[in-house]
C-alpha cells in the first residue's frame, strides 16, 4: 500500500499554496520533499493525515481515499501513520513516558505493563531510555525530536511522516536523527515522507527526492538524478544559488 496525492489544490484566503500537487510514495520507500520555505511542503504533509482537507483533488492512504471518511474513519487511518512534528509537539504537561505512550492508550486491550514495555523499547531505539520520568522542558531540542520520533513509532505504524526532523539541530545531532530515520525504515519497513531543507540529509536518507516549486512538484527522482538535473530551478535550490532561481523565474 502507498500514499497517493492526486492534483491537490489548497488555498488559504487568496494565497494559493498547492496548485495541482501530485505525488505517489511507493511502499517501503523514503521520499524526501524539498523546496524553499513557504512553498507548501508542510501543507502537503498535513493532507496525508487529514489535518488539512484539499480544496480540490484526492488523497489516498493505504488504499483509502480520505475525502469520503468521517472522523472515526480518519482516526483509523491515523492509527497507521506516525507523524514527527517540526518542533516535536510533545505535550508539556506529560512526562516523556506519558507522551510516548499516549497513542498506545488508544489501542484496545493493551495493558499498562505492555504500554510501559513498548515505551521503553521505543525510547531505547531513539537512545533515550532512562528519560521516561522527565518532562519535555527538561531535555534538549535534539532529545525532544528523538522523543517525538519515539512517540511516532510507538504504535508501529506502516507510514511515517517527518516534518523537518533536523531543522535547527547541530550537524552531529542531524546525523544521529538521519541514522534513526534509516534504522526505523530498515527495522520497521515503513513507508516514509520526509520534509527537509537540508540537502545533505535528503541525500543520506531518501530513496527519491521531490522538489516542490510554486505549488507543484518540479522534479522527482533519485538523489543521483537530482544532483545531475540540468533544470536551473532545481540547481539553484540544491546548490543554494538564488540567482539561478531568479533567472528561471
Amino acid at each position, binding site marked *: 500500500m502507498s500514499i497517493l496525492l492526486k492534483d491537490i489544490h489548497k488555498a488559504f484566503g487568496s494565497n494559493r499554496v498547492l496548485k495541482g500537487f501530485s505525488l505517489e510514495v511507493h511502499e517501503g520507500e523514503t521520499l524526501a520533499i524539498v523546496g524553499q520555505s513557504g512553498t507548501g511542503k508542510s501543507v502537503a504533509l498535513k493532507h496525508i493525515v487529514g*489535518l488539512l482537507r484539499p480544496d480540490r483533488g484526492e488523497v489516498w492512504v493505504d488504499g483509502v481515499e480520505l475525502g469520503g471518511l468521517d472522523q472515526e474513519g480518519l482516526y483509523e487511518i*491515523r492509527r497507521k501513520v506516525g*507523524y514527527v512534528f517540526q*518542533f516535536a*509537539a*510533545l*505535550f508539556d504537561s506529560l512526562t516523556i513516558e506519558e507522551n510516548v505512550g*499516549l497513542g498506545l492508550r*488508544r489501542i484496545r486491550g493493551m495493558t499498562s505493563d505492555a504500554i510501559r514495555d513498548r515505551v521503553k523499547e521505543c525510547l531505547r531505539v531513539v537512545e533515550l531510555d532512562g528519560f521516561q520520568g522527565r518532562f519535555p522542558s527538561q531535555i534538549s531540542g535534539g532529545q525532544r525530536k528523538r522523543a517525538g520520533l519515539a512517540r511516532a513509532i510507538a*504504535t508501529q505504524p506502516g507510514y511515517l511522516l517527518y516534518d523537518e526532523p533536523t531543522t535547527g539541530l547541530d550537524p552531529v545531532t542531524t546525523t544521529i536523527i538521519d541514522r534513526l530515520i534509516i534504522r526505523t525504515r530498515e527495522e520497521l519497513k515503513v513507508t516514509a515522507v520526509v520534509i527537509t531543507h537540508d540537502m545533505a540529509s535528503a541525500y543520506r536518507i531518501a530513496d527519491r527526492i521531490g522538489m516542490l516549486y510554486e505549488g507543484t512538484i518540479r522534479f522527482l527522482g533519485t538523489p543521483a538524478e537530482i544532483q545531475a538535473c540540468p533544470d536551473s530551478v532545481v540547481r539553484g535550490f540544491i546548490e543554494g544559488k538564488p540567482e539561478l532561481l531568479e533567472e528561471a523565474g
Partner: protein
Amino acid sequence: MNARVFLNPFRLIGLSALDTAAQIGRWGGLFHETVRALPKVDIWGRLLLGQLARIGVDSVPIALFIATFTGVVMALQASYTFTGAVPLYFVGALVGKTMILELGPVLTGLALSGRVGANIAAELGTMRVTDQIDALETLAYDPVAYLVVPRVLAGIVMFPIVVVLATAVGVAAGWATSLQLLDMSTPEFMKGLRLFFEPWDIQFAVIKSLSFGLTITSIGCFFGFTTQGGAEGVGLSTTRAVVVSSMVILVLDAFWAATLL
C-alpha cells in the same frame, strides 16, 4: 469621496457585527462538538479528576479571599447607610440576600473568568500554536473530547460548589464584622439574615454559577482552540477569553434575574 469617509464608521460597525456573529457561530460549532464528544468517556474520563482539582479546588482560595472582604465591606456599608434610619439587624438581611443572589456568584464568576478562563485559553492556545493539538489528532484522539469536555464538565460541576463556599464565607465575614465592629449580637444578625431568606435563593445562585462555569470554560476553550500565530496570538486569545466571558457573565446575570426572580 466624502460620502465614503462618512460611511466608513458604519462599514466598520457592520464588519465588527459580522465578525462577532461569525465568532458566535464558531463557538456554537465547538459547543456542538463538545456535546457530541460526551460519550467518549474512555478519552476524557481519566482527565476529569485533574480538571476538577485545577478548575475547582485551586480556585477556592481566591474565591474565599474576595468573598471575605466583600462580606466585611457589605456589613460596614449597610451599617453606615442604615444607622439612624433602619434597624441595624437589617445588616444581616442585606449581607445575606446580596451575597447569595448577586455578589457571591457574580464576583466569583468575574474572578474565575480571569483565573480559569485565562488559564484555559493560554494553555490551549499554546498547544494550538505549538502543534500539540494537531499531534493529538495524529494520535487518533478527538481533541475536543481530550481537552474541552473535561474542562467544561469540571466548570459545570465545580463552579456551584466554589460559589456556595464563597457565599457562605462572605456571609460569615459579614456576621463577624457585625459582631466585632458594629456592636451587633449574633441573634440580631441572624434575625436579619432569616428575614427575607428564601430557599429558592440558593437554587438561583447555583443555577447562575452553573451557567457561569459553562460560560467561562467553554469560552476559554473556544479562544484557545482558535488561536493563530505565536506568542502574540496566545496573548490575544487570553485577553479575549477574559473580556468576553466577563461580559457574558454580566449579561447572563441580568438574564437570570429577569427570568427567574
